[in-house]
């Protein structure tokens, strides 16, 4: 299979869906000739023209709200918010309007819109351009939230999001845009709400999304050399959440580590831990469930501080090692 980048995969999904369905169109800041801040939409305006690849004014509330309004009338808008931090500016339209219309109106409306947005730290862009805000939106009934880690999923999940009849927020990680992976040329989708087991293991279940999946897999490689067998689950979707895959895995391993870039306090790790301890997996736990998450600080500019503010491979390795030391089975073996 051919390899393409995550950014190309997103671009292909947009192009193919626009070709497939004339109701699909794009709106965002600088997505036309500029190609978007990360070059994701580069060239699309040449094929689809400015009517379907709309450079908008610098107005996040209007972009998100206009997507909702157009969606109610049956269009399938895909809005780009240049950095996910700016979702806060369009949050009224997303949270109070788009998410609630269907329910508030007694099921009489559909809001088939997508908001795609680059998230995360690692680029030195500091506190207002580096956040991981997915938990904010996961909390809202009526919204779906996905955070793909691979080019394959970036394409497949975006296609599902565009075809979905609900508002879907797609968090794309800036550091992933240039990563490569296998992506088929033929049409496919990745279902929203299904996690993927990226690596099988028997000692610990590591649950992650987005770039933290890559770091968790690298950590699992290192831990394997020490005889610790790690199962890595890539959630892919945060809402709806694939509780079944998580619970099944933890029943097998008896230990769980949740990894996310967003700061720990009230991050989605808490939701995953809750899902585990409320389930039958609780009876299988050999150790407390652990969260490896960002520090509770705004993302700093200095590269050393920035690195220290979010989980790195070594933090995941350390958490897994310590978990193994704590658990009775390991102590018995030692």
């Amino acid at each position: 299979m051919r390899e393409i980048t995550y950014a190309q995969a997103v671009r292909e999904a947009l192009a193919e869906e626009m070709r497939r369905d004339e109701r699909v169109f794009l709106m965002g800041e600088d997505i036309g000739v500029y190609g978007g801040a990360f070059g994701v939409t580069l060239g699309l305006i040449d094929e689809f023209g400015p009517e379907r690849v709309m450079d908008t004014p610098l107005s996040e509330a209007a972009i998100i709200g206009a997507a909702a309004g157009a969606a109610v009338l049956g269009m399938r808008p895909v809005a780009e918010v240049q950095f996910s931090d700016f979702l806060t500016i369009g949050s009224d339209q997303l949270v109070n309007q788009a998410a609630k219309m269907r329910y508030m109106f007694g099921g009489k409306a559909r809001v088939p819109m997508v908001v795609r947005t680059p998230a995360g730290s690692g680029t030195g862009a500091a506190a207002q351009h580096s956040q991981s805000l997915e938990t904010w939106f996961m909390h809202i009934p009526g919204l779906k939230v996905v955070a793909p880690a691979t080019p394959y999923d970036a394409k497949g999940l975006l296609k599902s999001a565009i075809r979905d009849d609900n508002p879907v927020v797609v968090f794309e990680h800036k550091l992933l845009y240039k990563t490569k992976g296998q992506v088929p040329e033929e049409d496919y989708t990745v279902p929203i709400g299904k996690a993927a087991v990226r690596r099988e293991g028997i000692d610990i279940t590591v649950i992650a999304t987005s770039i933290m999946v890559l770091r968790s897999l690298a950590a699992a490689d290192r831990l394997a050399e020490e005889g610790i067998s790690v199962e890595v689950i890539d959630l892919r979707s945060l809402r709806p959440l694939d509780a079944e895959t998580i619970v099944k895995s933890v029943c097998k391993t008896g230990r769980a580590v949740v990894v996310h870039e967003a700061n720990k306090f009230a991050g989605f790790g808490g939701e995953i831990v809750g899902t585990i301890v409320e389930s039958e997996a609780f009876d299988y736990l050999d150790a407390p469930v652990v969260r490896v998450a960002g520090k509770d600080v705004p993302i700093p500019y200095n590269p050393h501080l920035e690195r220290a503010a979010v989980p790195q491979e070594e933090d995941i390795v350390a958490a897994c090692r310590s978990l193994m030391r704590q658990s009775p089975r390991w102590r018995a073996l030692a």
Partner: protein
Amino acid sequence: MAESTIIAARRVDLPPERLVHMYRQMLRIRHFEEQVDLLFQAGRIWGTFHLYIGQEASAVGAIEVLEPDDYITSTHRGHGHSIAKGASIPLMMAELRGKETGYCRGRGGSMHIADVEAGNLGANGIVGGGIPIATGAALACKKLGNGRVVMCFFGDGALAQGAFHEAVNFAAVFKLPVVYVCENNQYAMSMPVARGLGSTDITVRAAAYGLPGVSVDGNDVLAVYEAAKEAVNRARRGEGPTIIETRTYRWRGHSKSDANRYRTKEEIEAWKQRCPIRRFGSFLEGLGILTPVDRDRMEREVEAEIQDAIAFADSQPDPDPAQLADGVYA
């Protein structure tokens, strides 16, 4: 330009030392920005920044009107405002290098340089984000009765933000001592003003809030000064806000990564012909205030000053990661 500058020069009635100081401030901004670009290319500055090259007259002309204890709010393109407000160039450089002794202890970087004590309430990573803040600062000045004013800078792109509309209307309603300075450099990233704004006439907008609005040649430092003077006086008299548009142009890309696909080389060249520094320099020569030798000497002095700042920043310590979590709360 010579014409309008001369008229303004008569009206603003500034002593020669002040005019020379303004010229030097513009030079300091230009050279600072050029060195920042080089440092980035050399991998010694990371992250992102937005250069102010070509717009120097806007910050200097407007901020020169302020007293040292007045306030400004700035933008993502904020180095010029910061220097014009009297920031220490070594401390700015240290911040861009992420050093512990920089303005934000290396936590903020280019988009967040602030010096609250000295009246700079901060650059801003959010377009339009500073406009409500400036409005609140003006509200405090009014409540405190301290006679100070706030000068709020933002780009043409910010005119499309809801925050602009809400804050300006708010300030108009409460007659707050704030001057809104819209730096129209013709583009918001790749979006030309004519396509990103329903109306590019700022005076029409101002009128809609019941405020005076004035549009000036933003590459003519004295024209900016003159307009700002009137607006600041009005604010200090308690008569409320003014909106000023400074028409200018950014010479460089929007940020470090910009292929300039949305504009032509010819357009950029044409604006370079209207370099605000060269114009003001030859104007001062015409008045006999500066000689070409003076101008050369000043350039060399400023270059040396910036090199010293770079050396200073080099010698400064990085933040200690053990202190990462400090300072989130007061």
